[in-house]
């Protein structure tokens, strides 16, 4: 028996956040709307008010612990004038929420919250209209307090939102722009509040889900358990490009093994218990063709620079005549930088659960892009798209698009084959070696400097293999079907076009080479690489011309917000004006201290300057980051504590990337297969984090997950140079690399 899930049953259930009903789906597709999803042009698709006053707000966006759930609810409560506690968020369910594109790129608040803000403002207007008719007074004479409408001059006359519209529909149309896209907006007649009136937005409201997370009761895809659910483990190729030639037998673990599913290069062991699936997969005898598609660890940057590419180099920025400026300059500087491939490094390996019955599929997924996963599964399983329901569940924090989509699609495929619910989880080694790794990049810079020590021209080239595969899960499933729909593509990750500096002449060229491994976005994609290289090159020029690193940057910046974060970071970190390297670089003491700065302007509409303070051990080469100071201007601060948590996390994540993280390759495969070979920052290595937050209430809120993750590698590199007078132009800053540079 299946239960029909509609808005009304949801309201009766008290607006339960996570619901796992079956089919049929509510079919409300209109033209230009993703099949089976609510129409963005209906106010009822965004908000519902129950009789008890509970407001359920629906968004196509999801939250993986970045406190977007809290921030969205704050925005809704603010515009509606209801208590924060009365707002329940439903996020991402493909049957209940409007398609708003993927939840990526730090645009959850920047773009994702906009339509809800406008819908809530419009809902308040409609509610006041209803109250105006009820009391027969103009809406302008009404006031709202905590969801109760009263007459300003006669407060005894009052009515609650629940009484006005509880469990009924608004039936109000909104004007929609950018259907199905991350920038979708839906506006009514009402104007949202002026930020000076905010009472709920701007407060550090604690996250409602945290008490559930500390009691292990918050729904998580890894903990989805369905009746009769089977467990599967995948057998992945020993090398990219290897193909199955024979699937043999395994050590039997009867009766718990259900079977081996083999189609093309897809091989999985399915069992009644998870441990039996693991043991079965480990012991299954599979023969593969050999494949050697990788250049080995030392060859990766050479490959990027020399590989033949059919993709034309892309000029992403061209200002002035760079070649003329370089030819006529009094000084020309040049340098090359290498940023290695890195691993998203989810603590919980990718997991997905699917229940496919007949022509209906219910999928429990940690995906950031439910719409894409839904269409992939529909294609692979040959089902109409509206018969695939994707229920977003929180995964492990993932910082980019990765194997979660693969696991979900694999689970759906296996469930269809076996006609039972199936749970798939990767093993650690699979996650580390087969997740869509961040591609490596290499850079070449030249800069012309005039006699006053100012940059006259900036010439910037990057080589990378970009992002592959239309972001569809192409790794695990029988490939033909999906590849035909979406052939792999490459593109430069970009970011160079958004320099903090207004150089008179500048050229940024991206070269995309054929991918050797599947690559996908990882926190601050493109920008962290460009910043690591460009902000160190800025520092090289400052040092070579005897200028203080902060003052040198300020000479090239005109934008007020960029100037403000630079000055604020310097003030908070007690920046001493002097050129680098600092005094310790000339001392012979074992420990050398240094500081460095880096800035990123207008990344997801947010501005960040980071000051790193480091100690370098000349004997061991070990770099200890003592303190990171981040000055951040995200525009309007919706939830200060939530933003601080993101700045802390992003700074630590990028410090880890700078000091420790490098995916290594052999000739045939990725060799960094666990946390020993791919270490990340530990408690004793985590720096003190100091945050200077610049709140601009009248500027729309920008992104926060990525921008503070962009600047640390350059800031740390600059601090290392300040400490020891040696420039390290390749990440990570490992003890071996630092020692070699000192030798």
């Amino acid at each position, binding site marked *: 028996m299946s239960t029909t899930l509609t808005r009304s049953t949801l309201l009766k259930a008290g607006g339960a956040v996570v619901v796992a009903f079956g089919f049929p789906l509510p079919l409300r597709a209109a033209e230009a709307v993703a099949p089976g999803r609510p129409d963005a042009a209906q106010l009822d698709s965004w908000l519902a008010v129950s009789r008890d006053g509970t407001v359920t707000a629906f968004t196509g966006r999801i939250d993986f612990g970045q406190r977007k759930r809290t921030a969205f609810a704050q925005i809704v409560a603010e515009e509606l004038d209801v208590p924060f506690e009365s707002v329940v968020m439903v996020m991402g369910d493909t049957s209940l929420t409007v398609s708003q594109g993927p939840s990526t790129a730090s645009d959850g608040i920047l773009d994702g919250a906009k339509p809800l803000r406008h819908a809530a403002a419009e809902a308040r207007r409609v509610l006041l209209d209803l109250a105006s008719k009820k009391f027969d007074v103009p809406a302008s004479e009404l006031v709202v307090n905590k969801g109760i409408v009263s007459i300003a001059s006669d407060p005894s006359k009052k009515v609650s939102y629940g009484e006005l519209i509880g469990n009924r529909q608004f039936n109000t149309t909104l004007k929609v722009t950018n259907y199905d896209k991350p920038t979708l907006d839906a506006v009514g007649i009402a104007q949202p509040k002026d930020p000076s009136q905010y009472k709920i937005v701007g407060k550090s409201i604690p996250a409602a889900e*945290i008490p559930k997370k500390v009691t*292990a009761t918050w729904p998580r895809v890894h903990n989805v358990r369905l009746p009769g659910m089977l467990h599967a483990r995948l057998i992945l190729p020993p090398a990219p490009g290897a193909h199955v030639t024979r699937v043999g037998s395994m050590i039997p673990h009867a009766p718990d093994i259900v079977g081996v599913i083999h189609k093309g290069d897809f091989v999985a062991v399915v069992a009644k218990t998870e441990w039996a699936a693991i043991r079965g997969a480990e012991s299954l005898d599979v023969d593969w063709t050999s494949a050697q598609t990788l250049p080995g660890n030392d060859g990766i940057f050479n490959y990027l620079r020399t590989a033949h590419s059919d993709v034309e180099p892309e000029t992403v920025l061209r200002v002035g005549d760079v070649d003329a400026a370089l030819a006529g300059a009094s000084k020309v500087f040049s340098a090359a930088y290498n940023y290695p491939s890195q691993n998203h490094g989810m603590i*919980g390996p990718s997991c997905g659960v699917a229940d496919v019955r007949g022509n209906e599929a219910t999928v429990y997924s940690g995906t950031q892009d439910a719409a894409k996963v839904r269409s992939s599964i529909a294609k692979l399983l040959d089902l109409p798209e509206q018969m695939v329901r994707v229920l977003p569940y*929180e995964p492990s*924090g993932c910082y980019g698009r990765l194997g979660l989509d693969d696991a979900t699609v694999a689970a759906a495929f296996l469930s269809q084959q076996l006609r039972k619910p199936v749970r798939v989880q990767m093993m650690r080694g699979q996650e580390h070696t087969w997740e869509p790794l961040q591609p490596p990049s290499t850079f070449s810079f030249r800069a012309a400097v005039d006699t006053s020590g100012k940059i006259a021209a900036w010439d910037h080239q990057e080589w990378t293999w970009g992002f592959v595969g239309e972001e569809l899960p192409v790794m695990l499933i029988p490939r033909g079907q999906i590849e035909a729909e979406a052939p792999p593509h490459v593109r430069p990750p970009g970011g160079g076009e958004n320099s903090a500096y207004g150089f008179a002449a500048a050229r940024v060229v991206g070269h995309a080479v054929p991918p050797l491994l599947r690559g996908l976005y990882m926190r601050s994609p493109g920008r962290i690489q460009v910043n690591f290289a460009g902000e160190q090159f800025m520092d090289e020029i400052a040092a070579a011309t005897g200028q203080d690193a902060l003052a040198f940057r300020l000479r090239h910046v005109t934008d007020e917000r960029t100037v403000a974060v630079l000055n604020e970071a310097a003030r908070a970190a007690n920046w001493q004006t002097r050129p680098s390297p600092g005094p310790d670089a000339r001392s012979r003491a074992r420990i050398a201290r240094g500081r460095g700065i880096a800035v990123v302007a207008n990344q997801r509409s947010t501005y960040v300057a980071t000051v790193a303070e480091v100690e370098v051990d000349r004997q061991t080469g070990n770099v200890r980051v003592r303190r990171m100071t981040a000055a951040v201007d995200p525009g309007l601060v919706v939830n200060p*504590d939530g933003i601080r948590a993101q700045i802390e996390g992003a700074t630590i994540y990028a410090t880890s990337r700078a000091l420790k993280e490098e995916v290594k390759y052999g000739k045939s495969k990725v060799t960094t297969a666990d946390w020993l070979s791919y270490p990340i920052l*530990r408690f004793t290595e*985590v720096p*003190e984090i100091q945050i200077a937050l610049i709140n601009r209430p009248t500027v729309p809120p920008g992104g926060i997950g990525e921008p503070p993750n962009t600047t640390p590698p350059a800031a740390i590199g600059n601090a290392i140079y300040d400490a020891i007078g040696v420039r390290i132009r390749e990440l990570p800053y490992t003890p071996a690399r630092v020692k070699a540079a000192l030798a």
Partner: protein
Amino acid sequence: MPLTIVVNGKAHVVESAPDTPLLYVLRDELGLDGPMFGCGLSQCGACAVMLDKREIRSCTTAVGSVGNRAITTVEGLPKLWKNGAKLHPVQQAWIDEQAPQCGYCQSGMMIAAVSLLERVPQPNESQIKQGLNGHLCRCGTQPRIVKAVARAARSMA
């Protein structure tokens, strides 16, 4: 012969073979959501549970090796503190400091904190960091966890 294990104060007869890692018995036979699979290699700490008064990694501990010693998962922490408690002080401190982001590692982190506070009731900052150093978090919640452990220690004093 079926094994009996004591989890969160209650004895359970389990069907798994003795060489099955405790993690899968807790999650798949007993339906507990606290211990998480992170690596299966004792490297990350997401699967940590208490065995009597010290933390172990359930992903590499065979269920047959546990005997009648008391296993405590996050679900059992309140009761470990006192009967009828809704939260262990460590859990309350985690809420007060708004420590979790995604939360995947946090059950293991709280187990590590309880284990540390058993050994060192009033740890200084360096002892907290050392005590939790075997646990990985990718969201970067370490500064808040350090504060939360110190807060829990104060409230348990």
